């Protein structure tokens, strides 16, 4: 285990002493981020971030205060550039539209939604029937993860504000009753009054969800164009880093250091483990340096720090898997370099590093699922929109699964070929 660690650290040190590698690992993604940031107007105040006219269908079966307020959010002027909302009264027809890839998501506000949040006359009486919580359904289009993610984030933000008001209201009433400031008979009137307060505040609060604009309390949900571009570039060049690391296995074989390791009291598993660990560490260091640099120089908010770290580690693991499988298949370091560069560009394009996946044909969107770029970018977009680690389960599971499968496949291939041609 110690030798595995030492070999990994040695590889990180070597990677960061290679000027050519440093240019591609750090300088290139940083410069491209700046370049694309300039193109999108990130540094000149232009608000066009490349995400626009996301088609969304609203099915408002509630038709009461909160349902209408949520529907109004989607048709608000603030989101007019971002969203292309359409109304429907038929949930099944709306879901079918998603299945036919006609929209990014459907938001179904069920009947009784407002009632489940805001108490009505008689809800507090002793013989009242308990009101069941009613959930809003977001039926997402899996081929448009970014658009669906944005819509889901808008709904989540609306619900969290409504829920916040409901809980604080209920707590206040209980505390007032316990302190004797109101009697149980007054609780219903107070509850209704607070509900009306939620209703009155909800439309304006919902507008805290803004894209391309800044508000004092909406930082976490503001979507910055760089929050898409920076991870997109970092992820693309992460593929370079992992193939560089993979190439080092074959390079060490050619330059004699791998055979020398194999005649020391160090077994093959420790050596291979060390090489993988080195690739992983180098990739993680690259991503974290780029994240740190973009935060420092561009004041870019990447979102929930824990989510960012876990997502970075998962993305690097998946990318490491790709680096290993390419190395296991290739015969020479130059083959790894050639294939690695091709994969970096293909994954970059197919994974949405240059053009949003939603603007690509369906087959490319399907293909993108094999790239770490697409899953990780989906996760970073979610974080950029105010999501947390809890919202990243799908991309993280996908990335970890990808990494594990590719790593096992590469170990099997290395086992067949042996580390040194004997």
């Amino acid at each position, binding site marked *: 285990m110690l*030798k595995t660690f*030492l070999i990994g650290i*040695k590889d990180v*040190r*070597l990677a960061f*002493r*290679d000027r050519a590698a440093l240019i591609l690992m750090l300088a290139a993604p940083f410069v491209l981020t700046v370049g694309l940031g300039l193109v999108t107007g990130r540094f000149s105040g232009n608000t066009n971030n490349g995400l626009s006219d996301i088609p969304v269908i609203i099915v408002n079966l509630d038709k009461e205060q909160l349902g209408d307020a949520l529907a109004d959010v989607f048709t608000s002027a603030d989101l007019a550039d971002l969203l292309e909302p359409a109304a429907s009264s038929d949930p099944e027809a709306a879901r079918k539209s998603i299945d036919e890839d006609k929209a990014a998501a459907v938001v179904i506000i069920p009947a009784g939604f407002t009632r489940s949040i805001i108490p009505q006359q008689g809800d507090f009486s002793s013989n009242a029937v308990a009101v069941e919580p009613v959930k809003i359904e977001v039926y997402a289009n899996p081929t448009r993860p970014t658009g669906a993610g944005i819509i889901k984030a808008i709904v989540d933000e609306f619900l969290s504000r409504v829920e916040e008001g409901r809980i604080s209201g209920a707590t206040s009433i209980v505390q007032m009753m316990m302190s004797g400031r109101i009697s149980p008979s007054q609780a219903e009137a107070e509850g209704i009054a607070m509900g009306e307060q939620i209703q009155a505040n909800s439309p304006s609060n919902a507008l805290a969800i803004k894209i391309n604009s800044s508000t004092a309390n909406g930082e976490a949900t503001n979507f910055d164009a760089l929050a898409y571009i920076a991870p997109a570039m970092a992820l693309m060049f992460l593929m370079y880093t992992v193939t560089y690391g993979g190439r080092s296995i074959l390079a060490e074989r050619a*330059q*004699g*250091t791998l*055979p*020398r*390791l*194999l*005649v*020391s*009291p*160090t*077994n093959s598993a420790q050596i291979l483990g060390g090489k993988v660990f080195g690739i992983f560490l180098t990739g993680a260091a690259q991503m974290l340096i780029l994240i740190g640099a973009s935060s420092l120089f561009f004041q870019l908010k990447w979102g929930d720090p824990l989510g960012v770290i876990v997502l970075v580690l998962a993305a690097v693991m998946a990318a490491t898997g790709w680096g290993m499988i390419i190395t296991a298949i290739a015969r020479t370091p130059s083959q790894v370099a050639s294939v690695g560069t091709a994969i970096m560009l293909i994954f970059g394009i197919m994974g949405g590093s240059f053009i949003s996946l939603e603007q690509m044909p369906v087959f490319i969107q399907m293909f993108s699922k094999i790239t770490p770029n697409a899953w990780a970018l989906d996760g970073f977009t979610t974080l950029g929109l105010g999501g947390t680690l809890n919202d990243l389960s799908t991309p993280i599971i996908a990335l970890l699964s990808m990494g594990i499968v590719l790593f096992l496949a590469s170990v099997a291939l290395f086992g067949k070929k042996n580390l*040194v041609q*004997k």
Partner: protein
Amino acid sequence: MGNILEVQNLAKNYGDFQAVKGVSFNIEEGEIFSLLGPNGAGKTTTISMLSTLYTPTSGDATIGGYSVTKNPMAVRGVIGVVPQDLALYEDLTARENLIFWGQMYNLSGKSLNSRVDEVLEQIGLTDKARNRVKTFSGGMKRRVNIGVGLLHKPRLLFMDEPTVGIDPQSRRSILDTVKDLNKQGMTLLYTTHYMEEAQELSNRVGIIDHGEMIALGTQKELTQQVGQAETLILHVGENDDSEALAASLKGIQGVQQAEATDHEVSIVCAEAEDVLAAVVTKANDRGIKIRSIDIREPNLEAVFLHLTGRALRD
């Protein structure tokens, strides 16, 4: 002293090609044993099997009592290896290289640091310890390459052609290092295709050719195989047909063998003086101008020529 290395019928095949054809030999603790042979003779493949890098096709060897096929990890703790090609991380400093390789040999902490200091002094690079290896000359890199093999004080050190492609001064330094190590009690298996190195260093020599051990013994035992024969080396011009000259010289009385190499003709004979005049006449008859003539006492070159009919550098 007992044998630290015992090799029994060690063989290595690559498909139909037999790189090593069942060689057997022993090395006593404390001696320098040279494996002498031309390029492609099977020296590196033999060392690769003995150092557990390659698995033998058949046969086995024991080092320090451990089988290379059955207990390779134990063998690796006994041996040190200095590979033919440089095996270093050029972007690390000399010291960082030694530290890393020492860690791979289970050294750590203060003992590692003090051992690295000792080795740096031994290879004469203490003042260059913090320079990256890529800034070193070929000879300095060779010395670091040797230093790595010495870190864990192996009982048996394999040195695979450590002087290939370096300047005479560095070569001298390496040969002196080999002798010093042996004086300190280290056993060495040294491969080379330079007859002079084998002669200077070795207690015993194994001559290997086409994967076979064709002769084995002390230098005296080996040269006795060619009797008292001397070798006459004719240096001829670049455009002269040395092969035709060698063929014509075989007919001279007293010439036992005559072989042409690059601009040279090697003639094995009982007494050089007896054939010299006839040899010069033959060369003149063919219009070949002899640039110089060397007369050599019986040596390993002559042994190789005697055994294979070819010069060692062929």
